[in-house]
């Protein structure tokens, strides 16, 4: 199999990518990119004609830069030139660039079309496929105009290679979707339909997508496809699991084609021809029967493929809605899935049953599952599954079960609170959040507690980019003749603060706003009226032209003599205030509300108090907030906001969010082929920060929006001292600040760490220091953990970090001559004494950088020892209380392949292994 570095490996590109990955900041990345762009530009403009390889390399670099999210405004011409290269790789990169970067109105389209035309007529299958892909990727009108008539010819020609037919079918489909008027099938129709009979399964799979789309638009012209599809399906369904060779997917024969056939049949009513219909019913029965057979494999891929066909068959049965027997069988099958342990199947079963419920034949059968569905509504952890359950209950409701279902739905409404939380937790933009909450109030006002609307106001006040939108939205919502009192509250508050933002529009002029609010006044309870009165006085300040009208309202008996003390007081005071205060005083008193201090969401606080069944666990919510919630932080999220000095650009090793355990990018994707779920270990929160300190003693260990932790440390023999600096980055005091250092597991017998407690208060902007004394008793592999707890605003922050105390800190460098080195190397030749790793370079392979790292490791870097001058060898002795461990290291870089081989030999095998692990992440 071709290895990564094989073939056309473009070394310059690999170096560039790795440079970008090594950039420590966004600025450094931009700088590096600009340098590269300047370089490429000068190469393209230079007098010397570039050879194909260089052109390809530079175009590929441009593509990489573009995919990183930067604009590219040149290089298109060079890419177009590559299209006419007769070297495959150059052409391929050219086409890739065009597909990704060229938009349909480009001036180059004529040149591109020309190159495509040449490739299409080249009769070279590989070139033809590239050209067809490009047409499908760009899919513009101009391309349709140029090629729509040519492609059907290629598709049905007898001498076209199968792979080209496949590309042609899908290319044609793409053009048909963008410009149906240009794709005229006419004479080709019957030959295209007959592709369903093609011997090559790949051709059928590709062609059927085209045929399905055409059938939807012109069912009559294509109706001959029904009988062909039925017989093809029947052949697949009745084939043994090995008949179709590589088209069998995890023991399921041709799942993609089967589903596509079933989908095609859904474009038509049941076949009229009795024989065809009989055959089809037989197929559907076979599929239903197979669902009951024991699985041929335990892999999820097997069951997914099998069930995909089953769900598609059920969709067809529902579409026909004419076979009571099949409908009931389908319903029973779905009933089984309702309690399946796979969440995916439960979700799909609920969804599919929803359509079954509307069929008269299966409505009763669906109703028998009511208890299961209600249970799903109550207990499913995944909100999207609960949503499906609610939909299904709605669909299965009739006179006989209405009372039960309505009662359940009502109690479900209590989850409104949770909806509000989810909306906040996952809010990606605030206008969406405002929409969602206002919708919530509109649909389920009674179930929206105070906390929910408090929160929406807090958020609107704190985010000036959403205020205008919020004002507009509440104004519209209040237009409804009957609106919930909670809506009036939100409306009153927001218009009182930000009504000016929409007052420019005559449809929402100040007086219109006021009249709208006041029209709701008399129907509201006392607290709401009190709120509205405050909104009115704010109006007087915002819009002097409303003063007279509002004063009149305040002055009337029902306000100024109101039996409620609060209302009366407000009316009297506001009236007086508006009459005697100067505009300046008024403006000061009634100034816009200052931003709320960021504190724990009121909704979250409420949820914490509530401990009912099904209540979302609070830690879960807080985790979510940290990951997805911007509402409290107000800053950017993710690695970008905490640029750690060594965070490389592409982020593989950049600081992980506090709550997520990083998975090394080097780990195999296929690990997941085993069914184990992602195991998150909370202790490994800062592997990144931790690993940065293997070769250095000072620096920033951790940083987020609130807190920065710096480290200085020194080691002598088997003793060490570490100074930790905790900096409060906010302007608010941290309270109850405590730190605990612990040595988990056997580490407590290997390492002795003593710390003094720190002051419990850390003022805003202040930094406090803590000293740790460390003693290494014997060699160790784990890291001590530092747990930090403090209160910021109302919220408790809790953070656990690995302290970068690693075994190499206790190294004493040992100088030795070449001869001694090899003698000792040989002495340490038992297999377990050696640990070796081969790994890809993650950073620049620059000699000076490497040397600095090896020195930072604490060993002696020995010159003139290794016969190969490219290699590095080091020697050192680890000092522990109990013993000394001699260690030798050899690092062999391979610049060509961007790889290293690292070998360690130590007198103690656990040390070899640990050092090897630590070091493999450093280069």
């Amino acid at each position, binding site marked *: 199999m071709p290895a990564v570095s094989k073939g056309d490996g473009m070394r310059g590109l690999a170096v560039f990518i790795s440079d970008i990955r090594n950039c420590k900041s966004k600025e450094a990345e931009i700088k590096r990119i600009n340098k590269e762009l300047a370089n490429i530009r000068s190469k393209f403009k230079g007098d010397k004609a570039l050879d194909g390889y260089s052109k390809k390399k530079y175009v590929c670099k441009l593509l990489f830069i573009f995919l990183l999210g930067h604009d590219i405004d040149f290089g298109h011409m060079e890419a177009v030139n590559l299209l006419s290269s007769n070297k495959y*790789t150059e052409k391929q990169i050219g086409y890739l660039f065009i597909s990704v970067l060229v938009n349909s109105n480009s001036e180059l389209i004529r040149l591109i079309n020309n190159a495509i035309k040449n490739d299409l007529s080249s009769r*070279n299958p590989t070139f033809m496929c590239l050209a067809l892909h490009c047409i499908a990727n760009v899919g513009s009108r101009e391309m349709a105009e140029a090629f729509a008539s040519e492609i059907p010819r290629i598709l049905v020609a007898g001498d076209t290679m199968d792979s080209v037919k496949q*590309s042609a079918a899908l290319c044609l489909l*793409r053009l048909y979707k963008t410009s149906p008027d240009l794709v005229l099938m006419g004479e080709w129709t019957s030959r295209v339909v007959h592709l369903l009979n093609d011997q090559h399964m790949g051709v059928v799979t590709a062609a059927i997508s085209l045929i399905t789309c055409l059938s939807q638009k012109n069912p009559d012209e294509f109706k001959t496809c029904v009988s062909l599809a039925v017989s093809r399906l029947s052949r697949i369904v009745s084939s043994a699991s090995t008949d179709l060779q590589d088209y069998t997917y995890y023991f399921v024969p041709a799942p993609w084609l089967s589903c596509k056939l079933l989908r095609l049949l859904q474009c038509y009513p049941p076949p009229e021809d009795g024989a065809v219909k009989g055959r089809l019913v037989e197929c559907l029965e076979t599929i239903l029967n197979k669902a009951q057979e024991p699985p041929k494999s335990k892999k999820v891929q097997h069951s997914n493929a099998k069930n995909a066909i089953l769900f598609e068959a059920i969709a067809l049965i529902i579409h026909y809605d004419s076979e009571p027997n099949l409908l009931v069988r389908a319903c029973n099958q779905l009933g089984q899935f309702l309690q399946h342990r796979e969440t*995916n199947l439960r979700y799909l079963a609920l969804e599919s049953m929803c359509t079954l419920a509307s069929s008269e034949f299966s409505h009763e059968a669906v109703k028998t599952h009511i208890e299961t569905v209600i249970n799903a509504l109550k207990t499913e952890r995944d909100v999207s599954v609960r949503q499906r359950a609610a939909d299904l209950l709605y669909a299965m409701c009739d006179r006989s079960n209405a009372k039960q279902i309505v009662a359940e739905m009502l109690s479900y409404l209590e989850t409104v609170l949770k909806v509000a939380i989810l909306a906040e937790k996952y809010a990606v933009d605030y206008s969406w959040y405002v929409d969602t909450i206002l919708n919530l109030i509109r649909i389920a006002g009674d179930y929206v507690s105070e906390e929910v609307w408090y929160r929406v106001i807090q958020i609107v006040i704190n985010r000036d980019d959403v205020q205008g939108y919020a004002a507009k939205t509440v104004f519209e919502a209040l237009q409804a003749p009957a609106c919930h009192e909670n809506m009036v509250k939100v409306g009153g508050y927001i218009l009182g603060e930000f009504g000016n933002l929409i007052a420019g529009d005559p449809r929402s002029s100040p007086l219109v706003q006021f009249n709208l609010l006041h029209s709701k006044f008399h129907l509201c309870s006392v607290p709401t009226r009190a709120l509205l009165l405050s909104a009115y006085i704010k109006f007087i300040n915002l819009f002097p032209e409303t003063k007279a009208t509002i004063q009149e309202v305040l002055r009337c008996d029902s306000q100024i003599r109101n039996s409620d003390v609060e209302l009366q007081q407000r009316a009297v005071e506001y009236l007086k205030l508006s009459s005697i205060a100067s505009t300046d005083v008024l403006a000061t008193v009634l100034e816009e509300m200052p931003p709320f201090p960021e504190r724990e969401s009121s909704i979250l606080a409420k949820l914490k108090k509530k401990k009912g069944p099904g209540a979302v666990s609070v830690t879960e919510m807080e985790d979510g907030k940290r990951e997805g919630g911007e509402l409290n932080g107000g800053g950017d999220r993710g690695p970008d906001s905490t640029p750690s000095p060594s965070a490389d650009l592409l982020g*593989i090793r950049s600081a992980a969010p506090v709550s997520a355990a990083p998975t090394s990018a080097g780990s195999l994707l296929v690990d997941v082929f085993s069914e184990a779920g992602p195991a998150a270990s909370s202790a490994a929160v800062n592997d990144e920060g931790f690993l940065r300190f293997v070769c250095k003693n000072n620096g920033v260990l951790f940083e987020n929006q609130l807190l920065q932790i710096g480290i200085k440390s020194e080691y002598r023999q088997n003793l060490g001292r570490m100074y930790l600096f905790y900096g409060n980055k906010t302007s608010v005091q941290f309270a109850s600040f405590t730190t605990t250092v612990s040595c988990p597991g056997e580490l407590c017998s290997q390492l002795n760490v003593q710390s003094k407690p720190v002051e419990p208060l850390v003022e805003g902007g202040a930094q406090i220091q803590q000293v740790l004394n460390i003693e290494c008793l014997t060699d160790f592999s784990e890291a001590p953990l530092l747990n930090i707890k403090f209160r910021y605003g109302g919220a408790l922050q809790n953070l656990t970090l690995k302290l970068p105390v690693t075994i190499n800190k206790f190294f004493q460098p040992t100088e030795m001559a070449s001869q001694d080195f090899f003698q000792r190397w040989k002495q340490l030749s038992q297999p377990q004494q050696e640990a070796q790793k081969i790994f890809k370079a993650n950073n620049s392979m620059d000699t000076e950088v490497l040397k600095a790292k090896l020195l930072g490791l604490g060993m002696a870097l020995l010159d003139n020892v290794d016969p190969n001058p490219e290699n590095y060898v080091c020697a050192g002795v680890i000092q522990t209380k109990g013993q000394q461990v001699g260690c030798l290291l050899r690092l062999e870089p391979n610049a060509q392949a961007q790889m290293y081989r690292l070998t360690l030999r130590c007198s103690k095998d656990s040390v070899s292994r640990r050092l090897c692990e630590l070091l493999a992440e450093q280069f």
Partner: protein
Amino acid sequence: MMRFLLLFSRQGRLRLQKWFTPMTEREKKKIIRDMTTLVLARQPRSCNFIQWKDLKIIYKRYASLYFCLGVENQENELLALEVIHRYVELLDKYFGNVCELDIIFNFEKAYFILDEFLMGGEIQETSKQMVNRSIEASDMLQEDDSSEWYEVELFG
């Protein structure tokens, strides 16, 4: 049909983006942002499907990478999940124990492999052997760039 396929890391870094319908850069950025937020916030063991606007989002995590596929509403969710899996298998077969780094450093290959498998948002070839054969064939072409190369039996 499929509308887009995105690969991103746990930190939300985009590793591959494939758009099957024309879209402005602005729309793409918005979708990328929405998808990373949406998918990264999911709890483990949630179902792999999310309804998002008029699309179904099907996602799955493989080691450090999330694969996220946006498909039209009538598409089959389970098969979409297997589209992702088959792509991972193809990458794995090509790179041999594929990891995120392979995709970063050989992004163009990851796009080529995808192009052999999917086209215009539909499946072009489901057979792993067939796809691999054409990828191998093009790799052979890269090694031996003689002009007579297409005489070689490539697709037999």
